[in-house]
């Protein structure tokens, strides 16, 4: 058999041009070439499938870096007496998110893009019937929820979405440190991570989502449906949870409660930025698979084209713009790194279509308004220990709306304007309002119920003593932290 690229002896073929066997030789050549092409297509298909599976698989550990970041950030922002309990809470949120998202979160995402009662949408990949077929851990659908040699997509898609869910829950985690009960917090994390944001994703981050098909909502990087939902869920919880003891004076003025390790917090924020490359990478649909939008180019979850180069240009400019904007007013590394996060969040909705210099400008403005927005919230008696409501909630909605300002007229789905809705300011505002409500209402209601049941806040005595002493059988710094000037060599 001929190898690919190897030529048959053409001299012989030409020499026997009039031979009656010529037709047979040509047919043999065509058959061999056809077989070679089929073999190449098979190999190419395997390579593409392995690439697609590996692409999403690698986003999972990248997104776990977000959690390493949240862990460091929250523990650093806690006082010494609460450092480990903040860590326990954060780790537990991650752990509970994975199974609960497996049990029902994944089903909610596929079941309700068109809203209630869960009818099938035009793209044919939604509705309760569809979700029942692919997303339950029992019956026939269980074949897509476990090891299956014929399915190299469901597990990695589930994994990426489960990490989106865990990220969403962790956003709320930082806001409530140093006074929330562990079990109450886990319940809130499950409601947020495996339900509230999943509904937002089904409605606004799915080709059949009603916010997309009816209002043209575009939120490529989940500024609204992850960040704003989580941020305003946290606000609903904070209203019922109340501030830490000592945060506010009788006259209403606020005291700054410093965490025990600012370098750890800032490093944690940088790790979150690292992990967000994986988060945003996981928002891309790779080409060439049966479930892909295109054979030859990657797309967004809406089926509109995108490249990883677009993400590289825009994420870097967003991080830079956010840091510079925050530096102008704060000069504080905590707010500067929060500004980096705000830069990404403010532009996340349109990272696929922003021009990099415009990304920089929008991110700069987000970094600039970040601290004044956080201060405004604090003046209203909200004790958000890490600024999560502002960074994720306010800036998330800001980003959703800003895309409506700049990207009006872009087809929101694969197709042409008229056949599909276009991005518009009104549509983005509608999306922002829905995302706000999907976060704030469940956060407020569930935390109110937990409060009435005595499951929300730890008792005052335990808060004063420190949650590590009360709840954690370990010490963060068993040998203590040296005070300034202690154990220094002469002259230091």
């Amino acid at each position: 058999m001929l190898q690919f690229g190897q030529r048959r002896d053409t001299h012989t073929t030409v020499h026997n041009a009039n031979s009656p066997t010529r037709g047979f030789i040509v047919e043999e050549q065509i058959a061999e070439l056809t077989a070679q092409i089929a073999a190449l297509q098979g190999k190419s298909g395997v390579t593409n499938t392995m690439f697609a599976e590996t692409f999403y698989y690698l986003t999972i550990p990248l997104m776990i870096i977000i959690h390493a970041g949240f862990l460091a950030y929250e523990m650093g922002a806690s006082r010494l007496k609460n450092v480990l309990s903040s860590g326990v809470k954060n780790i537990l949120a991650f752990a509970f998110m994975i199974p609960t998202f497996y049990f029902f979160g994944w089903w909610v995402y596929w079941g309700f893009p068109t809203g209630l009662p869960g009818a099938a949408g035009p793209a044919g990949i939604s509705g309760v019937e569809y979700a029942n077929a692919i997303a339950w851990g029992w019956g026939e659908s269980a074949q897509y929820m476990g090891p299956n040699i014929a399915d190299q997509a469901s597990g990695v898609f589930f994994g990426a979405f489960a990490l989106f869910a865990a990220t969403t829950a962790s956003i709320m985690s930082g806001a409530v440190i140093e006074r929330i009960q562990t079990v109450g917090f886990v319940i809130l994390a499950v409601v947020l991570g495996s339900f509230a944001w999943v509904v937002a994703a089904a409605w606004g981050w799915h080709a059949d989502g009603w916010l997309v098909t009816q209002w043209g909502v575009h939120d490529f990087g989940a500024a609204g449906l992850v960040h704003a939902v989580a941020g305003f869920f946290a606000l609903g919880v904070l209203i019922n949870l109340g501030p830490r003891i000592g945060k506010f004076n009788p006259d209403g003025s606020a005291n700054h409660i410093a965490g025990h390790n600012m370098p750890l917090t800032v490093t944690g924020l940088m790790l979150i930025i690292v992990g967000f490359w994986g988060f945003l990478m996981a928002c891309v649909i790779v080409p060439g698979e049966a479930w892909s939008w295109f054979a030859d180019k990657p797309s967004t979850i809406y089926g509109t084209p995108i490249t990883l180069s677009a993400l590289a240009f825009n994420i870097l400019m967003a991080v830079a713009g956010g840091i510079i904007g925050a530096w102008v007013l704060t000069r504080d590394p905590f707010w500067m790194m929060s500004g980096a996060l705000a830069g990404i969040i403010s532009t996340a909705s349109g990272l696929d279509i922003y021009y990099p210099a415009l990304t920089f400008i929008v991110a700069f403005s987000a970094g600039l308004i970040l601290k004044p927005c956080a201060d405004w919230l604090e003046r209203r008696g909200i004790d958000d220990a890490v600024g999560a409501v502002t960074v994720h909630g306010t800036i998330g909605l800001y980003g959703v709306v800003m895309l409506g300002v700049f990207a009006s007229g872009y087809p929101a789905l694969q197709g042409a304007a008229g056949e599909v809705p276009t991005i518009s300011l009104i549509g983005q505002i509608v999306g922002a309002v829905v995302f706000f409500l999907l976060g704030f209402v469940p956060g407020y209601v569930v935390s109110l119920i937990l409060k009435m049941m005595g499951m929300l806040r730890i008792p005052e005595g335990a808060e004063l003593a420190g949650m590590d002493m009360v709840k954690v059988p370990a010490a963060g710094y068993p040998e203590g932290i040296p005070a300034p000037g202690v154990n220094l060599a002469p002259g230091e």
Partner: protein
Amino acid sequence: MGFPYDEASWSVVDGAMFMGWGSAMPGLYTLIAAGICVAVLLFGQKTERAKTKQYDK
């Protein structure tokens, strides 16, 4: 700003697809972004000098 192609359809997009493509806006945005960087450095230097001056002996 709108879709940068005459026909608002993804099927006609075969190249640049960012906001403002084909107009003067990308250049203007670049100019504004560069201006922000310079202005921030000037403002930063001014305010930092004022703060450090307080510690001059």
